[in-house]
């Protein structure tokens, strides 16, 4: 049983330490990490362990002891702008997932980064990365969330470019930063607009705190900008931020390149600390999206399109890590799509999305860490065409990757089976209950399933089975203690998370309390929201009671998954079908996929180099001749006036004396004239 003393601690009051501990870890690691155990890594790992303990303590308080949701905040630099923390099921689910995964990734990195010469810098940056994500998750207001959102971006830039001496890594860091920046600017604009319309309502305290916005949605929904609902515009701007951070189409281009960073960083970015931020933002701001007409339709469509789009790209890539990177984009698409389905499903959609997010975090971290182990074992070769037969040399890694792959393709009874199939079933319910673009969303998601199974097992078969296709692959070496432990722990969760949570039901019930239950604050209580009424503000009619899809809809994803698995097995394991005649540069379809639908070409060669450079040329001429011309003309006039005027200063005393006497005389004459006497 639990120690009775522990049960009296209200961990919710220490929530700020969840953020502060990794920040302290960051400083210690940066300043003195080099002189400690194994030249770095100790402070970062321990500080995140501390955050993890507080997070699970909060979970215990809220889930087991039912102490209620809690929020506290204090005024910051400007009245009405607060810094604050919120503890509710949504933030708790994220906190527990992020701290757990991040802790094990740090644990793994102690082994993985053991040969790196700047270990303490690496661990300092990952601690800051994790701490920023904690801050983002705990934020109770938009501005604080945005600050941590940007800090996460900065850390990802630093870590993707961690091996900066490689030009590709430096370029990848820049690309990640720039792609996110496009979305972030629009996100900031959305926050500014939200601030404006809240101030217009006469609200002076907690102006952009989430709970306060939710309470005022009824008034806010009457605001219009350019004849459109202000909330819809704000939600679209938020969505742009989400597309940048959560790698939605078309701002996902940075994700494949981000594979240049250390594999542990890829695991952190994909599982815990970066791309989940966007999904979390929609989940956190869900009532706003619900109250905005058409906003959730855009979310659902963009998510479903991204899910299918990215999974087609995963089919042709040969880089082991990039295959998993595309699968991340695709799975994030599933999460965003189901959040969009919230227009019909209500808060249950948030629960499904976050459950898939958590399940995905476990199996994606596992996939990346096991591919990191492969890279470690065969000398940083990432091309699956040069692997093969690795299962014999590194069985731990191989079976761990198999566990992750099974969870990714939603094999029965793994974590992904409960989370992803639920999403697809509910997308069907969304479609049948009058969701906008419903069948299109559902079809996209269903097609994604078969592609996911194919490309995932293409990677696994090519890497792990068959004959070694390069010299390093003949004698791979298995990873050590730190990495093996992590792989085992994550495998257990990737396979068993669904069963542990009773098929996800316990998780969903816990998450569905978000928004609808009251939240205590230091000064009062925010009452729970009636999401049905909020939905009506945005023209969304929520389902009153649960619906069950027909049997064939439930079994369809399973069948398609088996079909995809069968395709992969036939082609890449049994080698029954030779695909090499299609996989050629002269096949136009292959070429489109290989060039990633020419998006990189469009962004870099056309938009960046042609359009922006042309604009810059005009700007340069304007700047050099018009703006500079005005400035130079003014200075020329001043200089010329000075040349003439300074001759007045002769330096001869008599001239000054004469001027004084003349001046005083004139003054006296004037006084006499106008006053008629002295």
């Amino acid at each position, binding site marked *: 049983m639990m120690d009775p003393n522990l049960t009296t601690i209200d961990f919710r009051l220490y929530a700020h330490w969840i953020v502060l501990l990794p920040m302290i870890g960051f400083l210690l690691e940066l300043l003195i990490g080099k002189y400690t155990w194994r030249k770095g890594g100790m402070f970062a790992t321990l500080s995140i362990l501390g955050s993890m303990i507080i997070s699970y303590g909060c979970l215990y308080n809220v889930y087991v002891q039912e102490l209620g949701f809690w929020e506290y905040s204090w005024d910051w630099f400007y009245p009405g702008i607060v810094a604050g923390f919120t503890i509710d099921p949504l933030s708790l689910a994220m906190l527990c997932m992020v701290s757990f995964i991040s802790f094990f990734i740090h644990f793994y990195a102690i082994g993985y980064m053991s040969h790196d010469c700047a270990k303490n810098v690496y661990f300092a940056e990952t601690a800051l990365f994790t701490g920023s994500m904690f801050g983002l998750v705990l934020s109770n207001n938009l501005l604080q969330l945005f600050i941590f959102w940007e800090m996460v971006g900065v850390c990802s830039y630093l870590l993707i470019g961690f091996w900066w001496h490689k030009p590709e890594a430096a370029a990848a860091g820049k690309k990640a930063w720039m792609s996110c920046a496009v979305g972030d600017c629009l996100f900031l604009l959305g926050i500014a607009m939200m601030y404006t319309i809240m101030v217009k309502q006469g609200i002076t305290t907690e102006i952009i705190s989430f709970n306060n916005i939710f309470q005022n949605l009824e008034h806010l929904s009457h605001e219009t900008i350019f004849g459109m609902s202000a909330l819809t515009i704000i939600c679209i701007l938020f969505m742009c931020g989400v597309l940048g951070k959560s790698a939605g189409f078309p701002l996902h281009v940075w994700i494949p390149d981000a594979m240049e960073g250390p594999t542990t960083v890829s695991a952190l970015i994909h599982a815990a600390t970066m791309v989940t931020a966007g999904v979390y933002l929609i989940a956190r701001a869900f009532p706003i999206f619900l109250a905005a007409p058409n906003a959730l339709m855009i979310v659902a469509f963009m998510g479903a399109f991204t899910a299918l789009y990215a999974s087609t790209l995963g089919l042709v890539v040969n880089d082991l890590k990039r295959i998993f990177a595309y699968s991340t984009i695709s799975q994030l698409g599933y999460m965003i799509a189901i959040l969009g389905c919230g227009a019909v499903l209500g808060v249950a959609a948030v629960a499904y999305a976050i459950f898939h997010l958590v399940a995905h975090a476990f199996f994606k971290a596992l996939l990346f860490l096991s591919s990191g182990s492969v890279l470690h074992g065969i000398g940083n070769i990432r091309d699956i065409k040069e692997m093969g037969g690795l299962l014999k040399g590194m069985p731990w890694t191989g079976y761990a990757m198999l566990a992750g792959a099974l969870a990714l393709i939603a094999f029965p009874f793994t974590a992904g089976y409960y989370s992803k199939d639920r999403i697809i079933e509910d997308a069907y319910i969304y479609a049948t209950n009058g969701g906008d673009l419903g069948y299109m969303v559902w079809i996209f998601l269903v097609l994604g399933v078969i592609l996911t199974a194919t490309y995932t097992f293409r990677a696994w078969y090519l890497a792990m089975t068959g004959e070694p296709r390069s010299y390093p692959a003949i004698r791979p070496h298995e990873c050590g203690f730190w990495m093996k432990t992590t792989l085992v722990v994550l495998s257990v969760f990737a396979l068993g998370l669904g069963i542990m949570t009773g098929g996800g039901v316990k998780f969903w019930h816990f998450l569905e309390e978000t928004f609808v239950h009251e939240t205590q604050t230091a000064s009062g209580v925010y009452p729970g929201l009636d999401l049905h009424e909020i939905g009506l503000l945005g023209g969304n009619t929520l389902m009153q009671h649960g619906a069950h899809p027909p049997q064939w809809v439930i079994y369809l994803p399973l069948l398609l998954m088996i079909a995809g698995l069968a395709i992969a097995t036939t082609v890449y394991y049994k080698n029954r079908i030779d695909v090499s005649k299609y996989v050629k540069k002269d096949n136009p379809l292959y070429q489109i996929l290989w060039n990633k639908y020419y998006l990189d070409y469009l962004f870099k060669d056309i938009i960046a180099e042609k359009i922006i450079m042309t604009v810059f040329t005009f700007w340069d001429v304007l700047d050099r001749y018009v703006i500079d011309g005005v400035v130079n003309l003014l200075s020329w006039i001043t200089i010329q006036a000075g040349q003439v005027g300074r001759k007045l*200063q*002769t330096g*001869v005393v*008599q001239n000054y004396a004469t001027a004084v006497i003349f001046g005083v005389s004139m003054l006296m004459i004037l006084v006499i004239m106008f006053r008629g006497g002295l």
Partner: protein
Amino acid sequence: MIPLQYYLLLAGILFAIGAYGIMTLSNGIRLLMCVELMLNAANLNLVAFSTHINDVSGQVFALFSIALAAAEAAVGFAIILMVYRLRTEIDIENVKLLRW
């Protein structure tokens, strides 16, 4: 009793001579002497008016003014002495290094 107008006329003449000297002369010492003339014209006025209205404070003020003039003369002559040491002349029309 000499009428007030005579004093004022004398002071006016003295002041005019001083001002004329300042505007036309270029010898540093002569210049200072002209300044003294102008100051003393003002002092004369002060004393004359003070006697005229039977108030002694004007004469006290004249004493201050004389002390001030002495100080001013000391500083002025010191400057002219330095100019002489530097340039072996005291023609202030040529002392115009610090212009444009």
